[in-house]
């Protein structure tokens, strides 16, 4: 059977968009032709019930953090539940100024189905202390594609913490494309929490560009969705920039999460660090694909990536594909990947001090992923996600 010709029902519903398949190099572990098992037609404008939105908003791990909140419900901006940032240094408008089309499957799908989005801009030299949270909510029970497209621009010398929280109810497909631009000397602390409905499919693409001396701290927690595929591209456009991209998976059941990151060192003297700490239980499967490109002129590049997996069951799986593509000759680059179980000696030590097994395991899981969480500079945000991670095992065992 020629899968490239025989379209799946989902593809037929997507009107000409070819879903990626396992013979495409970047998609070998995430065959969307199989994983998207039915059509997710474009969403129809449906008014979400306000109480559903309120209930889902309460599920955000960041409820205890003082922040501005930009809420998108079923693909459209929800002004009623949003609290716009007060600072004059922040500009927010609708819709986002969309980026040009692409043949990358997630972007192409987004291009076709996006119904809304936000354009957030921090004016040059504006220093915004309180985090700004984008909350993307899906409330529909009927399988639908919900797509939004956002742009975040941090002006020269400006700084901000931007959170992206994905929440929902039901079996939907969420597709989010985000363009992130950091100006000269800008700093962005970006935190993404993918805590979608357990029945959802989450597809995303974040395209990040860094100007001279810009600093990016990016962390993604992936713990929701039946299937998630998150693409990230990070391009250094000016010298002296520094990007740290981290993530953590907390997966169980039959969850499938795949991250593909491409870090492109186009200019000299930039630093990139990727660190992923992934926990898989039961039949869950995690994948990390990281590619670092060092262009011919990008001398003195310092690029490192590592991914580490903690497998809590014998049927859990983790696949790592590190790639280095180096064309310059004076660089420091490296990669590493490990995979293992909870250390029995650690577990026994904690238990011998009176800590029950489930609690001891969650402490060790929190310790394992903790290194990646250190990427989050904002204390309140980091603590909120650390708590979520610490409780993950216990809540899962008690039948979440």
């Amino acid at each position, binding site marked *: 059977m020629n899968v490239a010709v025989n379209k799946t029902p989902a593809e037929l519903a997507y009107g000409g968009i070819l879903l990626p398949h396992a013979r495409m190099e970047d998609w070998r572990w995430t065959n969307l032709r199989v994983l998207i098992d039915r059509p997710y037609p474009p969403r129809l404008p449906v008014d979400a019930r306000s109480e559903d939105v309120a209930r889902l908003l309460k599920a955000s791990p960041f409820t205890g953090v003082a922040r501005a909140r930009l809420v998108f419900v079923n693909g459209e901006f929800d002004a009623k539940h949003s609290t716009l940032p007060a600072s004059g240094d922040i500009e927010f408008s609708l819709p986002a100024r969309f980026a040009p089309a692409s043949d990358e499957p997630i972007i192409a799908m987004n291009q076709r189905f996006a119904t809304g989005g936000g354009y957030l801009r921090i004016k040059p030299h504006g220093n915004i202390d309180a985090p700004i949270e984008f909350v993307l909510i899906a409330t529909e029970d009927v399988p639908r594609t919900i797509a939004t497209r956002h742009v975040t621009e941090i002006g020269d010398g400006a700084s901000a913490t931007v959170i992206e929280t994905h929440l929902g109810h039901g079996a939907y497909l969420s597709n989010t494309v985000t363009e992130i631009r950091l100006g000269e000397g800008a700093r962005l602390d970006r935190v993404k929490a993918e805590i979608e409905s357990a029945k959802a499919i989450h597809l995303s693409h974040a395209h990040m560009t860094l100007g001279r001396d810009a600093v990016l701290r990016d962390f993604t927690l992936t713990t929701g969705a039946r299937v998630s595929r998150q693409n990230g591209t990070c391009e250094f456009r000016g010298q002296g920039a520094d990007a740290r991209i981290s993530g953590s998976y907390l997966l169980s059941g039959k969850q499938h999460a795949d991250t593909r990151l491409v870090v492109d060192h186009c200019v000299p003297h930039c630093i990139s660090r990727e660190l992923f700490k992934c926990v898989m239980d039961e039949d869950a499967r995690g994948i990390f694909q990281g590619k670092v490109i060092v262009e011919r002129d990008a001398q003195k590049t310092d690029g490192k990536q590592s991914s580490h997996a903690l497998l809590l069951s014998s049927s859990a799986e983790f696949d790592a594909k590190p790639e280095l593509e180096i064309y310059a000759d004076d660089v420091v680059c490296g990669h590493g990947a490990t995979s293992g179980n909870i250390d*029995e*000696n*650690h577990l*026994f*030590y*904690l*238990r*011998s*001090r*009176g*800590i*029950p*097994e489930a*609690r*001891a395991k969650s*402490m*060790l899981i*929190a*310790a*394992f992923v*903790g*290194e990646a969480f250190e990427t989050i500079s904002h204390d309140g945000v980091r603590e909120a996600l650390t708590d979520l991670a610490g409780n993950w095992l216990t809540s899962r065992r008690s039948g979440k």
Partner: protein
Amino acid sequence: MLEIKNLHVKLAEENRAILNGVSLAVKAGEVHAIMGPNGSGKSTLSYVLSGREGYEVTQGEVLLRGEDVLAMEPDERAAKGMFLAFQYPIEIPGVATMQFLKVALNAQRKARGEKEISTPDFMRLVKDRANKLGISQDMLKRPVNVGFSGGEKKRAEILQMAVLEPSLCILDETDSGLDIDALRIVADGVNALRSHDRAMIVITHYQRLLNYIIPDFVHVLSNGRIVKSGGKELALELEAKGYAGLAREAA
């Protein structure tokens, strides 16, 4: 307090017998030293008592205040008052020392139906115990045992013991890797915990530690059996004759 009756243990994987009928009764307030050459089964005894996996009890029983210890999970044993000071305390990166101590203490209290300790009371308790053992605030800020020297790790074990206040302390080769100053600090820490309602089992290869922690009874373990028991003078006799000499006599 503790009764070990005819305990036979083998390594589960290798099907190799390690303990061949150990019997020992320890009463509250007593300090028992268990001495023996390498491979005699000393560490196995401590691990079996604390519930480590990998050992199979083929015969015998262990009772803690009349309760079957071998049927309990390691954390239940701890909540019942048992504490093992490890020969090689392990490093646990990412788990903060203070959090670990607090979770452990409160888990034990909860299991015993007691109220949890408040944070200020806990801080005071740890600070007080740490000062007495020469443990700095900086050490307490690090993850469990991470970056500690051999001596610091042993002191940290005694700190845990002092905070958790167990009724049965098992010290496995606590003297190994300690210089004479560190040995004195650790021994002082242990002696401070001696009391009429607390029992201790001190496992050691050398007599040296017993100059500082004076035992009430000394037992010699050889080939998985207690071959000789006596008072504190037995340790000195061992030092003079060596284990080989004693084993010949016992045979």
